[in-house]
């Protein structure tokens, strides 16, 4: 048999056992990436001295080098760094004891944060400056304003690009075998090595990744709609009910009709 169709679907459950590894790496790396990306965005917006050029260098360097190179660099770089610390600072870290997943997380998070920071920065800058002033004028502190006003609005703006970044992250996890982590793709390669049905295996993997990204994209749309609270109509006031609409003045009616 040239191409074993049945195998493509039969072997899917076997590789799906490694789906949790893939998702764990993607979610954890995304979380670190968002925190780091947010900090980098704040540094750039506030133009913090010394840190701003450093952040610029980091973003430029990371966006200018391939993810595969970055994965290898962390895989060899972190042990090297630990060894260096042991020699110079007298620490006693186990150079060979670093769990492989750490390399994958560090590389993927650092890579993605460079992209996310730009999306987050643009979103924060896009939030209506007047609302920030309004928050200040009722006595809210900078942090309260950020948490209660800026972030909720910036999130709506940044969500589509951060969502794409997350989808990219899920697909990016397929490279972590270079750091000796066994994710879905790595597991698939090992399974295929037994019967040399590599093509069937990659077709199976492609189907799984595609379905995952479809689901994630769908969830993101739903989430975005939830965040845009004002586009969901008014509680107890359906815009289509003729009776209620009569009570609204023109401009309000026009706005709710659109909803």
């Amino acid at each position, binding site marked *: 048999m040239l191409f074993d169709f049945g195998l493509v679907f039969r072997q899917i459950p076997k590789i799906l056992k490694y789906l949790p590894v893939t998702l764990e790496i993607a979610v954890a790396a995304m979380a670190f990436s968002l925190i780091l990306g947010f900090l980098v965005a704040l540094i750039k917006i506030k133009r913090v001295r010394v840190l701003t050029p450093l952040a610029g260098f980091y973003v430029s360097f990371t966006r200018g080098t391939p993810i595969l190179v970055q994965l290898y660099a962390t895989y060899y770089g972190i042990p090297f760094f630990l060894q260096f610390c042991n020699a110079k600072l007298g620490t006693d870290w186990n150079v060979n004891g670093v769990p492989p997943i750490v390399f994958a997380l560090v590389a993927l998070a650092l890579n993605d944060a460079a992209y996310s920071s730009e999306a987050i920065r643009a979103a924060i800058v896009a939030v209506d400056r007047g*609302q920030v002033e309004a928050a200040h004028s009722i006595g809210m502190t900078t942090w309260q304003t950020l948490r209660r006003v800026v972030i909720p609005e910036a999130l709506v703006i940044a969500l589509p690009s951060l969502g794409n970044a997350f989808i990219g992250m899920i697909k990016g996890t397929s490279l972590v075998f270079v750091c000796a982590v066994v994710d879905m793709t790595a597991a698939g390669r090992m399974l295929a090595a037994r019967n040399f049905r590599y093509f069937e295996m990659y077709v199976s993997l492609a189907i799984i990744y595609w379905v995952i990204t479809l689901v994630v994209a769908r969830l993101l749309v739903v989430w975005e709609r939830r965040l845009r*609270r004002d586009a969901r109509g*008014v*509680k107890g*006031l359906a815009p289509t009910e003729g009776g209620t609409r009569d009570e609204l003045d023109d401009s309000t009616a026009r706005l709710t009709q659109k909803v």
Partner: protein
Amino acid sequence: MNSMIRLRGLRKRFDHIEVLKGIDLDVAEGEVLGVIGASGSGKSTLLRCLDFLEVPDAGEITLDGRAVDAAHATKADVRYLRRHTAMVFQLFHLFTYKTALENVMEGLVTVQKLDKVTAEAVSRDLLDRVGLGDRVDHFPSQLSGGQQQRVAIARSLALNPKVMLLDEPTSALDPESIAGVLAVIRDVAAEGRTMVIVSHEMNFISDIADQVVFLNDGEILERGTPAQVLGAPATERARQFLARANLTLSRAA
């Protein structure tokens, strides 16, 4: 009467332009001060310096007995000024993803740390007062301009500020909405709250203000009762400005 606001030598410069050239001003408790003048005369900047949305370069701001040195204001000073004043903006600036009720509750819950039940009761009362008791669950995008501005006034009132600062509150509204907003402002003034209003509504200013100042090029050119400043201005510049303002008013009518 108790002094509520006392400004001495307030200065502000943007790059090469000196916007405020040493403003001295006194507003008594319960008094309504109307600030008029051409665009670019420094009206809005004066108002915004009062709660440090613009940081003044020099001078002294005294609010209800506490003096703040503008050049060396501490974080606590700024917090004091902001907690005891509230600004109403020309473009409302309601929080987009919060309902009318949540907009009004925000300061009570976040700044004054009131429990949600009390904050909600207070906020519902205020929205009732500005005539929007039936719009509490509407989002800003579902309200007309006039309604948004009334929510914004309720949001400022919620914090029970010593002074309300109103920056051209009706400039972005259509003539019909203006009446509603002015009625609300009149109602707030009537309860004896100290107010500073920047506005081009000369009739309204003459009606509501106890004291009027005419600002020109960052200086107070005229000050006095509405009858003095609007009725019989002493300077040529003020006469010119008012003549034009009245002309546009009568044309619009």
